[in-house]
């Protein structure tokens, strides 16, 4: 029996996922914050900082926070049928795509185990480009996957704006030097996740992206560098962004089909399934 009043949040501790959690807390009876750790993801405990702020604001009964290990699962998702995928999709297998799918797969299992009816994350349109979790097509595919198990996947901060004053020119003070017309201080234009959290008294400033506080409040992962090098340094300049997205979607849809088979086996066999061994 699925509980529609509860929601799981893929929670890194950063301003986007914290904002998603805060918005969810206003609508749902109970919010489960899920932070994931594995070899290569460091400082998972940083997420405790904003998780505590959410607990202080909305109550400990409403907010629960868990740090879950996905090392074995991520390894499996990244390397299962490796030669087949490597031959067919090449460098799309590198780091970020399989990793993000792992996090959603683990969240799906968590929701099924705990009978949670809804899941969300801090996906945002402004990061849409090369990274899988921020592409609308990928989000739609993941939404289908969740929905086939009766779980709703929402992206509450997808349409939020991105702060304007976090570029090189701002960091170096170039605009000030050349007296360029620029928004003052923390004014970031439209509604950003930082601004929403500041208005809720969760963050001390409207824009913390790129600051030391930002580093202290969320997990860190450097593996995106390799994926970034592949996409921005190789595939997109040669084939273009549209072809990149098409190819990525073909790869992702096939990986999602594999994941679906694993979840079906998990529901059928329980403790005897491969997924159970990878998750527990």
């Amino acid at each position: 029996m699925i509980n529609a009043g509860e929601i799981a949040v893929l929670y890194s501790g950063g301003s986007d996922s914290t904002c998603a959690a805060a918005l969810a807390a206003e609508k749902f009876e109970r919010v489960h914050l899920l932070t994931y750790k594995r070899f290569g993801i460091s400082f998972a405990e940083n997420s405790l900082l904003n998780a505590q702020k959410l607990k202080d604001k909305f109550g400990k009964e409403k907010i629960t926070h868990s740090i879950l290990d996905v090392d074995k699962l991520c390894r499996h998702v990244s390397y299962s049928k490796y030669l087949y995928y490597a031959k067919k999709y090449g460098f799309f297998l590198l780091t970020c795509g399989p990793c993000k799918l792992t996090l959603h797969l683990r969240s799906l299992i968590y929701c099924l185990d705990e009978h949670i009816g809804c899941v969300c994350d801090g996906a945002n349109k402004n990061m849409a480009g090369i990274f899988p979790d921020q592409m609308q097509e990928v989000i739609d595919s993941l939404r289908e996957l969740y929905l086939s198990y009766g779980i709703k996947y929402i992206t509450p901060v997808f349409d939020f704006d991105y702060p304007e004053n976090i570029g090189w020119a701002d960091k170096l003070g170039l605009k000030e030097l050349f007296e360029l017309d620029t928004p003052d201080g923390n004014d970031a234009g439209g509604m950003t996740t930082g601004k929403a959290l500041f208005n809720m008294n969760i963050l001390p400033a409207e824009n913390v992206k790129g600051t030391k506080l930002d580093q202290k409040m969320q997990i860190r992962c450097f593996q995106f560098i390799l994926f970034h090098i592949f996409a921005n340094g190789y595939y997109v300049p040669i084939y273009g962004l549209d072809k990149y997205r098409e190819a990525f979607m073909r790869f992702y849809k096939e990986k999602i089909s594999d994941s679906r088979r694993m979840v079906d086996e998990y529901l059928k066999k329980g403790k005897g399934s491969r997924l159970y061994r990878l998750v527990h």
Partner: protein
Amino acid sequence: MKYAFVFLICLLGMMLPWRLRIIYCDILGWILQGIYMAYYYIFKIIINSLKKNK
């Protein structure tokens, strides 16, 4: 030439097993972080000098 270099970096990443690939990515990350920091601070010094002279 540039694409061949990038291809080689990615190919090496593809050939590595799980943990080695992560360590490889982290090393690449720290190298790029070092270049980024050097670039940032050199610019910062130049811009501060320009501001003083302005």
